[in-house]
């Protein structure tokens, strides 16, 4: 009960902080529009409505991952700059329970990305949103946000330990977009890259949204989102204490 309350309060607090950030809102609202526009003009030549919807949803999930890759990795750096990272670590609650809601809250701002992209696509380019499995599509939204958020949680542990790791987030952005099939289907990628795709929540989140809209094995996709959330969570929780001890040994928690 206490654990749930800590996580819930953390979610509310960090969602408030992130949603009051002009930068986060700016990124969340404008990037998907740019991406959706680019995708529309790239795909309209081959132009079935399904292809356009693929491009539209791909842009939305890319936006959600960008929030995580840039903003969640930035979240740890921001806590350092704000001087709150040490205070969070000095609290008696397990640090994983502090970090997890922080990254999920950042990913949740990705709702803006999803909504912006779909509304923009519908209103400006007339891209339809057929909902073959309305319930599954609705469930796919939090499943994608949470699984990508937990992926961000595992990544953030590296940032707590290594101050220089802030740049990692930015460099991951495009490779993950490509390997997750957000720009084009992963079937066109070489076979050796498929296991990497399958290990990423972005792949299954994208598939869940797409299959929820157009029909397909959506429950398998949702199950994979849940499974990967669990795996990322276990990895994050298992390394958190070791990384924190290393950070306390190397004095990398503060800026100075």
């Amino acid at each position, binding site marked *: 009960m*206490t654990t749930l*309350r*800590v996580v819930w*309060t*953390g979610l509310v*607090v960090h969602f*408030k*902080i992130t949603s*009051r*950030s002009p930068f986060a809102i700016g990124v969340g609202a404008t990037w998907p529009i740019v991406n959706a526009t680019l995708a529309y003009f790239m795909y309209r030549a081959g132009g079935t409505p399904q292809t356009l919807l693929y491009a539209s949803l791909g842009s939305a999930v890319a936006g959600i991952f960008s929030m995580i890759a840039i903003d969640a990795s930035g979240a740890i750096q921001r806590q350092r*700059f*704000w*001087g*709150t990272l*040490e*205070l*969070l*670590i*000095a*609290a*008696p*609650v397990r640090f994983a329970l*502090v970090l997890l809601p922080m990254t999920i809250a950042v990913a949740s701002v990705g709702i803006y990305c999803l909504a912006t992209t779909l509304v923009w696509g519908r209103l400006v380019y007339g891209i339809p949103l057929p909902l073959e499995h309305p319930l599954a599509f609705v469930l796919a939204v939090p499943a994608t946000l949470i699984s990508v958020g937990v992926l961000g949680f595992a990544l953030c542990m590296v940032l707590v330990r290594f101050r220089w790791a802030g740049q990692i987030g930015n460099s991951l952005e495009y490779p993950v977009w490509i390997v997750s099939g957000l720009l084009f289907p992963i079937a066109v990628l070489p076979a050796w890259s498929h296991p990497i795709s399958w290990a990423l929540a972005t792949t299954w989140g994208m598939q869940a949204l797409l299959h929820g809209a157009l029909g397909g094995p959506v429950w398998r996709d949702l199950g994979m989102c849940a499974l990967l959330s669990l795996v990322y969570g276990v990895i994050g929780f298992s390394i958190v204490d070791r990384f924190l*001890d290393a950070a*306390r*040994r*190397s*004095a990398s*928690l503060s800026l100075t």
Partner: protein
Amino acid sequence: MIEAIDLRRTYHTTTGVIRRKRLDVEAVRGVSFAVERGELFGLLGPNGAGKTTTIKMLITLLLPTSGKARVLDRDVVDDAREVRKRIGYVFGGDRGLYERLSAHDNLRYFAELYGVSGAAQRKRIDEVVELVGLKGREKERVEGYSRGMRQRLHIARGILHDPEVVFLDEPTIGVDPVGARDLRQTIADLVAVGKTVLLTTHYMFEADALCDRIAVIAKGQIVGEGTPEELKGRVEGGRVTEIEVFGVDEPTVGRLREIVGVTAVSVEEREQRQVLVVQTSGEREVTAPLLAQLDGFEVGRVASREPTLEDAYVALVTE
């Protein structure tokens, strides 16, 4: 309540780009002291003396390179989580708060992290807000707060979970004189309600006014310890001569230090001039030899006075 035994901390850093060279910096070099229950203990020292490093080891944020530290009979390395439950940590400056949130939201979040039960949170937040004088302003966003208000909010956050021991790391730094006076009163109130407080500061009058005992730390080592009166007593019987001078150089200051009867010399820069604060044992008259060494420099006002705690401190950190 707090015990540090031969505490040491070395930082590792590197220089160079191609041929990287590892450097070891000893920030704390064998610090030992003990703080009793209900005591307000001051750790006094100049910037870079090792105060913050010492406090960070005590509050479990840094692992000591060697030595032992215990807080409330719990080891800060082996029993970190139990130590964290029972201590509060407050540091000075603008950072350490969520500016986009209200003070109430900041406090609510940290109340949760420190295990204050849901039922007790509202009452406890009201109490601490009242104690630090932020009543009526707690719903405003922190970004609109003055430095003094932020510092009071820091203290409120640090004592939310009613810790037995409170660590205050330069809590009045950068706060205006009136705000600093209010904060000192708040700190005194903490001790009045039974808290044990470890305060680091480089303000002499603050340490003098608040602390039951003081340890002076310089270059990572404790160079003096005692009550403010005991420390002042170390320079009792001595005299302090202040000499206003223009353009004095370091070699000359070095020669002043070598004059028999001179115990310490410090230089205060005041716009174009400098004031040499010369401490002497008081057993012999040194004004004439001092002025002789300053021959060739433009000398202004020369005055003599009784030593203060600040002089005791200067003597300790320049030994």
